[in-house]
Structure formats: C-alpha cells, structure tokens
C-alpha cells in the first residue's frame, strides 16, 4: 500500500504515471550486525541462557518428540516470499530464555555482517 503522504502528493500534482513500490527487506536478507547477536545473548533481554548441556538435552527431546508426533507436511511454497522462515518468537507465549540452539537458528537466518 502506498504511503499516505506520497499518495496525497501525487494526487496533488495530478501525477498518475508513477508506479509505487516499497523495497522492504526480508528477514533472511538482513545482516547479522554484531550488536544483534550481543543483544540476543544478553540476560537482561532474553533471560538466563541455558547451559550448552541443557541446550543439547532440549534439542534431543524436541527431536524425539518430532519423531513421535511428526508435524504435518507443509504445502510447497508458492513464491519466494512464502519461503521466508517465520521469525523466531523469543517471547511469544513462553517466558523461558532463548537457548543456544535457538540462538544459532535465529542468527543462522541472517546473512553474515560486514
């Protein structure tokens, strides 16, 4: 949708020959700025990180759960946009801190920084 101020300006100028496009970044295209990584490991933001041993245990348990209750197969993505992995919801519903595995997954979806 066109920005409301841009739309008003074009209308005022009587211009109808413009094509409007917003170039929004996809999550996967964002750079991995070191600050983002530091913040995701900061206990004041995400809580106390679990130890690596705990993280491995959680990963094993999740893998076992996935084996017992496989998730329904998702339909093939129809476009590039559909294939963008949903953002990691650090906080939604659960208040336990982000684990090492989750952090790696989150950071892995961002391209390396400069």
């Amino acid at each position, binding site marked *: 949708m066109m920005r409301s101020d841009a739309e008003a300006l074009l209308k005022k100028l009587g211009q109808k020959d413009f094509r409007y496009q*917003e170039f929004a970044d996809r*999550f996967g295209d964002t750079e991995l700025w070191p600050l983002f990584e530091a913040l995701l490991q900061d206990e004041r933001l995400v809580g106390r990180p679990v130890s690596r041993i705990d993280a491995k245990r959680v990963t094993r348990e999740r893998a076992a759960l996935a084996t017992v209750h496989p998730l329904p197969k998702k339909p093939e993505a129809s476009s590039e946009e559909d294939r963008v992995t949903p953002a990691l919801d650090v*906080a939604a519903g659960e208040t336990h801190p982000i684990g090492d595995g989750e952090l790696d997954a989150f950071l892995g979806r961002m391209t390396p920084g400069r």
Partner: protein
Amino acid sequence: MPLLLFHSPKGGVGSTFLAAHCAMELAARGHEPIAIDFTYQGSLKLFFGLLPDQPIVRAGDDSEEELVAAGVELLDGYRLGRKAAFLKMLADPDASPFPSDKLIIADVAAADHALKQALLPHAVLQVCTITPGPVALASLTKVDPAQPLAELQKTLIVVNLLDDTRTLARHSNIFLHSAFERLLAGTVRQDEAVNEAVAKFETLERFRPTSAALADVRAVVTALEEHCNLGPRKEGEEG
C-alpha cells in the same frame, strides 16, 4: 480506567510525541483521556498545537479551569511527581491516586526512572518507545532492572522515527519485530510533518492529515486498545 505509562530508558526517541498522539487518537476513538506531563521540559503540549508559554493546569490543583485540547485534558504533573505524599500513595499498589473512570496517559522523562518505577504498579501498560539505532537498541537492556525484557507482561515497544532509506535502521526494525514480536506494538516512520506541525502550532492531524507518521500512530493505538481491552467507545457511552 487504565493508566498507560509512556517511558523509555533512552531519551530523545519521541516518547512524548507518541504519548501525545496516542492520547489524541484515543480521544478521537471516543475515550476521554487525561494526559499528564511528568517531565521537566513540559513539551507534551506542543504536540497539541499549543504555544510554549501556554500554562497547563497543575495536576492536583482544582482551582484552575481544565484545559482540553484535541479532546484530551492536559495536566502538568512535574511537581506532583516530586511530592512525597504522591509517591507515598503510589507505594501502595491498592491505593491508586488516579480517578478510576478516566484513561490516564502519563509521559515520564527517560531520566526519571524512580517515578516510572513508582507508577508502573498502577499502570496497565508501559509503552516503551525506541528508535531503530544501535544506542537505543542497547538501552532495551534497561527497560526493567529486575526482569528480562522478554519476560515483561505489561510492556509494549514502539519503534519510532524509522527512516526506511537507512540500511541499519531497516535491519534494526526487522530485528526487533522478529526477536521480540510479542512486545512490538508497531513502527512509526520518520515524518518531517511532525516537526512542521509543532512549528506552526497546529496538531499533526490538522496540519498534515495524510502524514505517514499519523497513519502509523493509528495502527499503534489499535494495538494498544487490543492489548488493554479498550474497545472503541461509542458516542454517548458512559464510563
């Protein structure tokens, strides 16, 4: 009715702008908000199209006639926020000093952390404004000294002053919406019309009704209404 507390750990991010425009938008939706400016600089009134020398009724002073602008009753709360009796009352979570039938918007300065902490138990929501830059992002570690940000239940973050021509600003905005999705109430784009309206002593709604920032604020207010269960009020509805 609830207290909405506007406070950011970082100054200069537009928390006062957001408090003022959320109050005006809530008024336009049929709520009857009272906006209390607890800051020393007292700049909240400027967003209502008022002049810098316009006196504002002091909170707690019943002798002066109320000042209502753009549907919002404005109060100067700076002295009140320093009164021992007021702070003592705030210390009792069961004894709210605010009228129960009003929607209160409190604008608290970034540096006034003590007042923010005193008001917080009485608030239904803290709206934390930040800009999509590294210093503001880092300040998120200071939103609550006792609890990690991700665990806060009555805090919403608004990203303000997004300049979408700037790479880091765009990436910071995406990062915040991705990593702290539950806490994000929205993003308000940078719009020079906000400053121009203040300079002309007009409200943004009157000066530039097509403002991109204004449209973004409306979306933020919808998120606040949903979070606080503030249904849009119909005309003539009581309470």
